[in-house]
């Protein structure tokens, strides 16, 4: 019997440590021989904490939303009695059936701190194969044949990047793993580093072999302490096993990896800023060329690959390019991991073959919108990605198709929006994020995004001028064009895509001073329907600013001037008497 508890950051946040502790104590008290395995993220974040029980005959049961007090029952009834606790089991609900797991093949299944478990599932076979059977050039060829493109966002062909660095003649080259996952709501890289760290190291070693690098850096943001801890342990274990360090696996190839904890600046995900950060300078981008493959870290040729990109490499080397390229579309091969979030029933970590449509991801895997609200759009590609409306839900998820909609693949954030979401407000939210993360280097990004944000705020508040939107779009194009790095160049995207597909919502704000989704506070008003009000005074008691008082009869009234539009009365009223207009 195999028992495992998901102990990635998501599980821990949901209380998995307590569940794990209770489970261990409970088993010990009963002197049961079963050990409990600590595994990484399974992906079903919406059901955390999770306990997986696998029997020798292959029977598999998954308990979700387990509370510490439930553990006793599971142990007694299932582990001792052999009878699953039906009401605590979670249904797969289609969540896994449509997924294809390459990057996440081990996540949630193996103990991330165990090199043996990784090796037991084919780990380091790819590296061994590369070192034993292939020249660096052949490794690059293999990756090229796989069609793998960088998963950090831009989708540059990984093999091409490698070949640029490989042809540089320099005594020491660098390979950097970019784990500076800064998008709000994104946790793909963290989950992989926490759940399967050796996979990333193996990918780095293979890449290093391919380009001739001797030094590797894993740049991981300091906000991911567990990822750093697990990666540190993995590096130590790999060194011990001669999988890193001098003469790896007895070959002539030597390569070692150091961890650099980033201090959490969004822009450090940009490769030139990341280089500056590792060098000990302020994380600020610089103009390319020269590209890092020519002159990167400390002037050395440097390849920078995203965590997910590197996590694909061992699989490709193990299963061959052909197997990999059998997934995906013509120009986008393999799979993509998404952090599915927002107003969706099954929020979590999913890996899907390229080319799956947005609709399939949202409905078949995600289970549709939460509470059955209308599906309005997805926001994809991180804070500077774009919004794709439900009318385009059949767009396949591949690099080119997404760009056509004005959005980008990005690193893998996928946020589902329902019809209670104001698209202008969404644009404002993301622009606000990007503006606050601007490194401040170039005028168009530092001041331009701020001025865009102020303009958008005016629209949200009904204070905008007649031609405000046109001016905003025109100016947004300038910010895109004249900003130095990807941050500024994509910062206007939320505005540009939402204004393209949701023009009517902008028009309502601009012309009628109305927020159709009832989100923009300056434009909404709460009112109590006298007919429905039963005078229970719940709203009056809970109003944080005492804006509600006794009306002229057996009902309450809201003073609009005092009301701060927090919406609590609207949520609380048992009789739906509070209306929004």
């Amino acid at each position, binding site marked *: 019997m195999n028992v495992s508890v998901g102990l990635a950051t998501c599980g821990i946040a949901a209380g998995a440590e307590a569940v794990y502790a209770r489970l261990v104590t409970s088993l010990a008290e009963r002197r049961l021989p079963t050990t409990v395995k600590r595994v990484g993220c399974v992906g079903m974040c919406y059901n955390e904490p999770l306990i997986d029980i696998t029997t020798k005959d292959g029977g598999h049961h998954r308990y979700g939303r387990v509370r510490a007090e439930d553990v006793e029952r599971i142990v007694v009834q299932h582990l001792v009695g052999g009878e699953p606790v039906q009401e605590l089991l979670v249904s797969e609900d289609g969540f896994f059936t449509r997924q294809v797991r390459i990057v996440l093949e081990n996540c949630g299944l193996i103990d991330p701190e165990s090199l043996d478990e990784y090796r037991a599932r084919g780990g380091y076979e790819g590296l061994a194969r590369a070192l034993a059977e292939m020249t660096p050039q052949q490794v690059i060829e293999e990756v090229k044949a796989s069609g793998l493109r960088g998963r950090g966002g831009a989708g540059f062909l990984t093999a091409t990047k490698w070949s640029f660095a490989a042809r540089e003649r320099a005594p020491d080259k660098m390979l950097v793993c970019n784990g500076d996952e800064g998008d709000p709501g994104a946790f793909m890289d963290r989950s992989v580093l926490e759940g399967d760290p050796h996979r990333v190291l193996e990918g780095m070693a293979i890449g290093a072999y391919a380009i001739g690098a001797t030094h590797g850096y894993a740049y991981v943001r300091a906000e991911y302490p567990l990822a750093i801890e697990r990666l540190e342990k993995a590096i130590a274990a790999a060194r011990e096993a001669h999988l890193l360090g001098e003469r790896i696996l007895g070959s002539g190839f030597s390569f070692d990896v150091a961890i650099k904890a980033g201090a959490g600046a969004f822009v450090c995900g940009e490769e030139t800023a990341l280089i500056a950060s590792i060098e000990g300078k302020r994380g600020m981008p610089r103009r390319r060329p020269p590209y890092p493959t020519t002159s990167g870290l400390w002037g050395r040729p440097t390849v920078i690959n995203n965590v997910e990109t590197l996590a694909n490499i061992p699989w490709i080397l193990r299963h061959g390019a052909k197997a990999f390229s059998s997934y995906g579309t013509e120009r986008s091969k393999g799979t993509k991991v998404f952090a599915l979030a927002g107003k969706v029933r099954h929020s979590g970590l999913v890996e899907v073959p390229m080319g799956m449509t947005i609709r399939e991801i949202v409905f078949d895997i995600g289970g549709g919108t939460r509470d059955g609200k209308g599906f309005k759009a997805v926001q994809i590609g991180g804070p500077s990605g774009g919004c794709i409306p439900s009318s385009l839900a059949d767009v396949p998820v591949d690099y080119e198709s997404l760009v056509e909609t004005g959005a980008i693949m990005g690193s893998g954030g996928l946020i589902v929006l329902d019809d209670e979401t104001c698209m202008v407000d969404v644009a404002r939210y993301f622009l606000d994020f990007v503006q606050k993360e601007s490194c401040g*280097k170039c*005028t168009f990004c*530092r001041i331009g995004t701020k001025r865009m944000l102020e303009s958008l705020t005016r629209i949200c508040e009904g204070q905008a001028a007649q031609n405000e939107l046109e001016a905003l779009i025109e100016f947004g194009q300038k910010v895109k064009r*004249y900003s130095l790095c990807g941050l500024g160049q994509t910062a206007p995207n939320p505005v540009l895509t939402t204004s393209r597909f949701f023009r009517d919502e902008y028009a309502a704000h601009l012309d009628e001073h109305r927020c159709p989704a009832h989100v923009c506070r300056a434009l909404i008003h709460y009112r109590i329907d006298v007919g429905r009000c039963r005078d229970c005074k719940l709203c009056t008691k809970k109003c944080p600013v005492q804006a509600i008082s006794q009306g002229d009869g057996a009902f309450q009234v809201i003073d609009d001037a005092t009301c701060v539009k927090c919406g609590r009365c609207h949520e609380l009223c048992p009789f739906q008497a509070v209306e929004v207009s």
Partner: protein
Amino acid sequence: MTVTINGRVLAGRSGETILTLARRSGVDIPALCAESRLDPFDSCGVCAVEVEGAGVVKACSTPIKEGMVVSTASPAAEGVRRTALELLLSYHFGDCVGPCQLGCPAHTDCQGYVSLAANGLFLEGLKLLYEKLPFPASFGRICPAPCEDACRRQIAEEPIQIRHMKRFLGDQGFDYLPERDPDTGFHVAVVGGGPAGCTAAYFLRRRGHAVTVFDAMPKMGGMLRYGIPDFRLAQDVLDRELGVLQRMGITFQNGVRLGKDLTLADLERKYDAVFLGLGAWNSRGLSIPHEDHPDVQQGIDFLRRLNTGERVTLPRRVAVIGGGNTAMDACRSARRLGAEVTLVYRRSRDEMPAIPHEVEEAEEEGVEFRFLTQPVEFLVEGRKLTGIRCLQMRLGDPDASGRAKPVAVPGSEFVIPVDAAILAVGQTFEPASLADSGLRFDRAGTMVADPETGHTDRPKVFAGGDAVTGPGIAIEAVAAGRRAADAIDQFVRGLPIQMAPGYAHTKEDVTRADLGDIAVTPRVATVVRTPQERVLDSREYMTDFTADQAREEGTRCLGCGCSSGFDCALRDVSSAAHAAQDAFAGELDRKLPDERHPFIVRDRGKCIACGRCLRVCSDVCGIHAIDFAGRGIHVEVQAPFDRAWQESTCVSCGACVDACPTGALADRGNLAKQVPLRAQSTRTTCSLCSLACPIQVRTLGGHYLTSGPAEEEGILCVKGRYGWQAWSPGSRIAGPLVRRDKKLIPASWDEAFQLIRDHLPKEKDRTWAIAAGDLSNEEGHLLARLAQSVLKTAFLEIEHFRPKSAFVAPARLVASAEHWAQADLLLVVGPRSRYEHFVLDLLLRSARSKGTPTASLSRGFPDADLAADGGDVVHALSELCRPRSHSAELEAIRTRIASATRPLFVFEERALSREALQGLCDLAVAHPNGRLVPVRALSNQNGLLQAGFDPRPDREPNRRSLSAAVVVGADLARDPSLADELAKLDLVVALAPRENRTTALAHVVLPLALPLEGRGHVVDTYGRLCERARTAVAPAGRENWEILVALAAALGADWSYPSWEALSQDAALTREERLGAEESVFLPGRTDSRAVEVEEALKQKGI
């Protein structure tokens, strides 16, 4: 590679950017963040250019390509540039010039002269006034002072008394005559001698043109003379100021009336251009019955009669009708004639166009006010005026002028009994004199002319003042006169007439919090005669500031205008691009300046985050004391943890200030009150070490302001940059002092010389002559001659070249500049930290980056290729002389020296002991081509040695035989043992810039000029001759050579120098004779008092 920029085909070098090529080829591409020393930063976006086929790109970071076609001024490129600038301006909190200056129609530099007055620099203040206004004393009396309305000080309490400051400066009675350009041969006629005409004449004359002013009245001055009563502007004040114009060569012709005595056509024929400043001398009427009664007169006629000295009488009861300044002047003049005066005005007090304080003063003087009163008929009984029938009015809706329109209250008629009435309801221009001139007039009867240039429809004719604008305030006429002079100047020279665009950024919606931490300080009160007194005569009733009051009032100025107002790249580029401040309104941090650094003011609100300061600091200076902090729009340049900059690794070199393209970083000048100025700038040589860096000294009227590097993109150490400033203020000795009754008291030069003559020993070798190491060659030469032929002594020394401690090395060991250039190894010994010898540090690093290997025994040069702990330098040096060293680091250096063909041993002299000097010398001798580079604490020890100062041990003075000492510049008594010795002497003569320990025991003290205050030459580390200029003027007014020559003459020398040139030539010849004869070089191993003084001054400032 061929690249075309703006149609010019240029040869580009592979790899360079568009901007580099353009700058190299003299094509101007504006750029704020780019700098030749730094890699492209790609930040500001101002260098936008359009490349054919590629659209708009940033020139600073776009590499050129073969056949590239670039346009710097295409509409697209200019659009992007303007957008970038407008974004920067939207987040820029500052004022280019003060609101006072913007508020003044003539843009007089109010902040400038007010602040100069605060510093007591009254003449400089007056000169600045004359840059914009030829009538400072007159306008200091009569101007309505819109500058004061704009003054921000009133947010705290009251505006600065800018008008009164003008009066004070104008009244100083300086014999100042504004400078003018050489004669051009052009001749301009000006018709009308009022403020517009005279101002145009003044500025045209300054440009070198001949000017004749014609006026119909008997005297010049126009309305200033004939429209303003004497109690406000005494006519002798005006006469004095008109006298300045005449002394400048302007011809005045009075009693000549246009249209009668001469015609416009005559003028056009005879002159190169004509300016018409004709004024508005016609009065409006009320068009009511009996207006033409003899007892009803016009206000300006009344005032003119008074001003021409006519005896004017008035009956007892007089009504003055109107609400403007002429009405006030008429009321107050009538009071002075003894009349009971009633002012009749149809609106209320708030609507009166007169200056409020004039209204108040009229009231004080007993004028009765009848507001909301409209005369409808003058009542006449027989031949006598008996009263005015009036209607009561009330205020209705605003009219076209924005003031409430008076409306009659029905049935409210009443009568004011009067014996006479004066009408002052408006003035107009009388176009009759120009009836057939072909000039155009508008419906109101005013002349039509370009509002900017004053150009009329007739090519040679320009016009300005009241005749063009309708009646306005006099300062507007001055402004029009100056603009027209600018235009006429271009016109007569055949140039297209262009008025310079001037971007002026302003702080908007300023609140008390934006003023920072200032104390409430009300305006300085001057004496004003009481109303009872002043109505008795027509004399002025205000008095001037005293000098102290002027300084005090000036000190109140908040200094709104930017210290970089005259040299701000952001402002220049914004002007050229016609950028607007409010194109992108939005959040703006209202940051107050950071004043924590003693010499650098950081006006944080003006930072455009171009990063030049911090990139120069790290990439050029290698210091990295500052960097960006924060994110997004709030990014700011800071030292770590936002400490004061000098509390970081900052070496106070000021390179960041030079790099700043705006006023965000500026050097604080050496005046108590900071003034943005166009200062004079003079190149000279720094004297604070023997590297003798070229420096640029900014001065104003002989007063030192700041110093900086003379070479473009040069960098100085803290001493060269700020040492002069830290050291030079304080109480200077301004004249000779002699000791009487144990006290030093001021004396005449003769008295001082007499005292020296009386007490100087007559015997040989009884006097000790000793000089500071920064005297010039010429000063040294004079002192040497003085010692030899007058003091009759062989004891001639440089401070601290004490025979017993000085180390003597063979002269051939000292490196020349060529040796430096050819060296293949530099070993550094000496500086304890970078800070101590930052320029040396830069030189070494520059050599290193060019491929010369470096080694160091000092902590002061951490970047060396090879380094060893210099803890015990003597030991380390002796190790280096051995066949093999025990220390691996030293051994590495030793072998590197051995393998070098031309090694140089660079050392900071003062940091080394005699033993260490010996060790270094041994090291140099041991190598066939080893050479020494001694970096000395002051600039001219080398030059003085060559001038004949001789510290050889066998020449050491026999202390017991000494009875007198002449100490020039050095503070010998800092050394207690020397103080004891000096105290025993019969005569100590100290030449010193300020009192010190040596002057404290001297019998005679003579004022000494600082090295920046006199001409001369010095010899630098490598033996090169460097020139020293007289940048500032010593308080005593004399240069040191003059003092020494006078002293020699007073002591009976049979030589003297008729001129500086003669001296300089003699000194140079003597030096040349000695050159080559030198066999030894003296290394003192100690430092001079003056170097220590500067360091202490800096330390006191917190650096």
